[in-house]
C-alpha cells in the first residue's frame, strides 16, 4: 500500500502551513476537575510544534484527564491553558476540530461496519473520503475486515479502526491515550510509523503509554506525571 500521508500542510484548511511561533500546548498551573476530584492539580507543560511527547506516570496520575482536557473535553477550572493558540478557558470548543484524540473508548458504533464507521467519522469532520480509505488500508482494515460489524471485532482491531478515524481527520495535534494497548507487534509498528510520518509532516503528538521502551524510542521528550502535576521532564536525545 502506498504510504498515503502527504504532508498535511498542503491540504487547505487542515493545518495552516505557517510555522507556529508559540508552543502548540502551553499550560501553567492548570487545574481540571472530574466531578469534585481535582484530577489535574496545577500542571505546567509546554509542547513545541512537531514534537512527540511521551506522558509517563502511575495509574491515576491524571494522564487520561490531561489528554482529554487538551482536546477540550474537560474544562480547566484554574491556571493558563492554551492549545494551538486557542485559550481553552475562554472557548474550549474552538480547538476540537483541529485535534485528534485516541481514547480508551473506541468511539465506534458497534452495529455499523468498519467502513461505515470510518466513513461516518471522516465525513463528520469534513475530511477527505480518500484519506479514510487510505487510513483503513494503512491499518490493515481493508479487504475482509472492511464490511465486518465493529461489534464483532477484537479489541486490537477496534483500536486500529478508531486510529484510522483519527488519521483520516489529519489533526494538527494528536493526543493518543496508550496507542499501543491491545495491538499486536505488527500493529504497534504501523502506529509508530504513522506517528513519525505525521510528526515529520508538521503535526504535534502527545501520547501516554506504559510500553516504555517502545514509546521512549518513538518520542522526543518525556514528561512524568504524578498526583495531577508534572514532576519530571527529560529530553530523550535518541528520538
Amino acid at each position: 500500500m502506498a504510504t498515503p500521508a502527504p504532508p498535511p500542510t498542503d491540504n487547505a484548511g487542515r493545518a495552516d502551513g505557517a510555522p507556529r511561533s508559540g508552543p502548540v500546548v502551553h499550560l501553567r498551573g492548570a487545574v481540571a476537575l472530574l466531578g469534585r476530584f481535582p484530577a489535574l492539580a496545577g500542571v505546567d507543560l509546554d509542547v513545541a510544534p512537531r514534537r512527540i511527547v511521551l506522558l509517563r506516570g502511575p495509574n491515576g496520575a491524571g494522564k487520561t484527564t490531561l489528554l482529554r482536557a487538551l482536546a477540550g473535553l474537560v474544562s480547566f477550572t484554574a491556571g493558563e491553558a492554551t492549545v494551538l493558540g486557542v485559550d481553552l478557558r475562554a472557548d474550549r470548543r474552538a480547538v476540537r476540530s483541529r485535534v485528534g484524540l485516541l481514547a480508551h473508548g473506541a468511539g465506534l458504533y458497534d452495529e455499523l461496519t468498519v467502513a461505515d464507521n470510518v466513513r461516518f467519522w471522516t465525513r463528520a469532520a469534513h475530511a477527505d473520503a480518500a484519506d479514510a480509505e487510505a487510513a483503513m488500508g494503512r491499518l490493515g482494515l481493508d479487504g475482509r475486515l472492511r464490511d465486518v460489524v465493529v461489534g464483532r471485532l477484537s479489541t486490537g482491531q477496534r483500536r486500529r479502526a478508531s486510529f484510522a478515524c483519527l488519521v483520516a481527520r489529519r489533526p494538527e495535534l494528536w493526543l493518543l491515550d496508550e496507542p499501543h494497548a491491545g495491538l499486536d507487534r505488527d500493529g504497534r509498528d504501523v502506529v509508530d510509523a504513522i506517528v513519525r510520518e505525521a510528526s515529520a509532516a508538521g503535526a504535534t503528538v502527545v501520547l501516554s503509554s506504559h510500553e516504555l521502551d517502545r514509546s521512549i524510542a518513538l518520542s522526543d521528550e518525556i514528561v512524568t506525571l504524578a498526583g495531577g502535576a508534572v514532576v519530571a521532564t527529560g529530553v530523550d536525545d535518541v528520538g
Partner: protein
Amino acid sequence: MTIETDAPDDVVDPGPLTTGSRTTAVLGGVALVAIAVLALFGLVLSPADANQGEAVRILYVHVPSATAAYIGCFLTTTGSVLYLWRRSRWWELVAFAGAEVATLFTVITLVTGMLWGRPTWGVFWVWDARLTSTAMLLLLLLGYLAVRRLSADYEVRAKRAAIVGLLLVPNVIIVRQSVQWWRTLHQKPTLFSNGLDSRIEGLMLFSLFTGFIAIALVFLWLLIHRFRVAWLAEQVAEEGLEAAIAERRAEGASA
C-alpha cells in the same frame, strides 16, 4: 406552626447560624399576622356565599395558592434562562427554590380544589379545565425536580435542569390552552372558573384580598429560606475543593 427566626440584634451575635436574617424575621412576623387576619375574616367574619355556602371560604386560600404556584414556575423559567445565558449560579438556585415552593403550592391548590369540589359538585375530582391544568403543572414540576435532584455533580444537574426549567412556562401555557379547549368542547365552562362570580364584594372580597397578601408573604418567606438552604448545600459541596487540590499535590510529591 412556629417560625423561629432569631431577630439578630445590632451586634452579630455568634448565636446558632441559621438561614434566618433580619428581613426573613420581619417577613415571617408580618406573614403570621396576615394569616391571623385571614383566618379571622375568612372563617369568622365573612358571610357564607349565596349558593356555595361555606365552601367559598376554601377559595380564600385556594385561588391565591394557584397564583403563587404559577409565580414559582415563572421564577423557575426566568432563573433557568439566566443560568443558561449568563451562567449565573445565583439565578439557577432561584429557579430550583422557586420550583420546590411552586410544587408545594401546586399540591395545596390541587388538594383544596378537590376539597372544594366535594361539597360543591359532590365528587372530589372533575376533569375541569383549571384542576386538570394544575395536575399537569404538578407533573411538569416533578419532571424538573427529578432532573435537578440527579446525583451527578452540579454542572451536569444544573444545565440539564435549566433546559427543562426553560421550557416549564411554555409547556404550562400550551397545556392550559389545550386543556381549556378540550374541556370547553363538551360542556360550557363550569362556574368554577374561580368559583367567584363578579358580584363578590364586601367582607368576602376583603377575605380573598387578605388571602392573596398572606399567601404571597408566606411564599416569599419560604422562597428565601429554601434558596439559602440550596446556597449552603452548594457551598458545603465546594468547600472541600482547596483541601482536595492540596492533598492531590501531596500525593504527587510523595510518588
